[in-house]
């Protein structure tokens, strides 16, 4: 059986590279989390208006930002996969989706946990909250579509099309919801501290970095499994050390 080495060279090299990168990202993530949490809880001062509750911010804001960022990256990878027919980028997109969805979920959850003490309600129908919820639905759509199609190549292409259409729609959703909201109620109570304490900024930034390294590490780990699964009939997979042993 002739194997087109050129075609498979990319996943081969990438599989090894990813394997080498994962520990680096994983460890830096762990360290950054440790530092970030330390600053968040022990260095950052208690907020004047929100007391301790504001400390939820240090997990809420990074996860919120990453959930949106990951969607864009995922759509980008998917589009590259669709246009240039590169399998690897499609696999990357597939690997990113669950992490993005989880971040969106954490964002919603922590937001709700913050909203209850601050606004007295678990949930309000505010622009940001609503569009984050819709973002979660978009992730679900991507994952569900990919999962319902058996042929992986077809699944990649179909899901990519969806991701692209979705990414066009995300800004539209955000602005429409924002506008819709301003039509009705006055400004929602928002976090008061406009001029943030320097320690808060540091904590926020460190946690953001920690979350970012985490998502890189976990999606690289996930994509390695996906590569193995999809390329299971190739010679190079059979020759891998972890397969042979």
């Amino acid at each position, binding site marked *: 059986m002739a194997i087109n080495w050129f075609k498979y060279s990319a996943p081969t090299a990438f599989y090894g590279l990813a394997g080498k990168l994962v520990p680096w990202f994983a460890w830096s993530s762990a360290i950054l989390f440790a530092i970030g949490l330390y600053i968040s809880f022990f260095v950052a001062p208690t907020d004047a208006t929100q007391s301790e509750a504001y400390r939820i911010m240090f997990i809420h804001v990074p996860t919120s930002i990453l959930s949106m960022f990951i969607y864009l990256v995922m759509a980008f990878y998917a589009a590259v996969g669709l246009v240039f027919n590169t399998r690897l980028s499609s696999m990357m997109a597939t690997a990113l989706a669950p992490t993005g969805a*989880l971040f969106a979920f*954490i964002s919603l959850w922590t937001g709700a946990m913050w909203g209850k003490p601050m606004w007295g309600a678990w949930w309000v129908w505010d622009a940001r909250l609503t569009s984050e919820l819709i973002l979660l639905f978009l992730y679900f759509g991507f994952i569900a579509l990919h999962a319902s199609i058996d042929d992986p190549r077809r699944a990649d292409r179909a899901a990519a099309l969806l991701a692209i259409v979705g990414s066009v729609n995300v800004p539209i959703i955000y602005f429409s919801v924002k506008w819709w909201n301003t039509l009705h109620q006055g400004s929602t109570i928002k976090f008061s501290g406009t001029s943030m304490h320097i320690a808060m900024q540091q904590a926020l930034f460190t946690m953001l970095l920690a979350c970012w390294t985490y998502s890189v590490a976990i999606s690289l780990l996930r994509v390695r*499994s996906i590569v*193995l699964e999809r390329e*299971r009939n190739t010679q190079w997979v059979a020759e891998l050390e972890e397969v042979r042993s």
Partner: protein
Amino acid sequence: MSEFFAMNGYAFYIWGSYGLALLIFIVEIAMVRHKRKITLQQLRLMRDAGEEGQA
């Protein structure tokens, strides 16, 4: 110490947030690693079956 954990009365919300986030991270890591284990297992199984078939 207990004062720290009490978080000035916001313990439920704060630890609820961080706790769930932590739980999700742990579960995700566990699931991804489990998936890798399963994948490798299946690969070995298939290879063994293939060798048997040739023999």
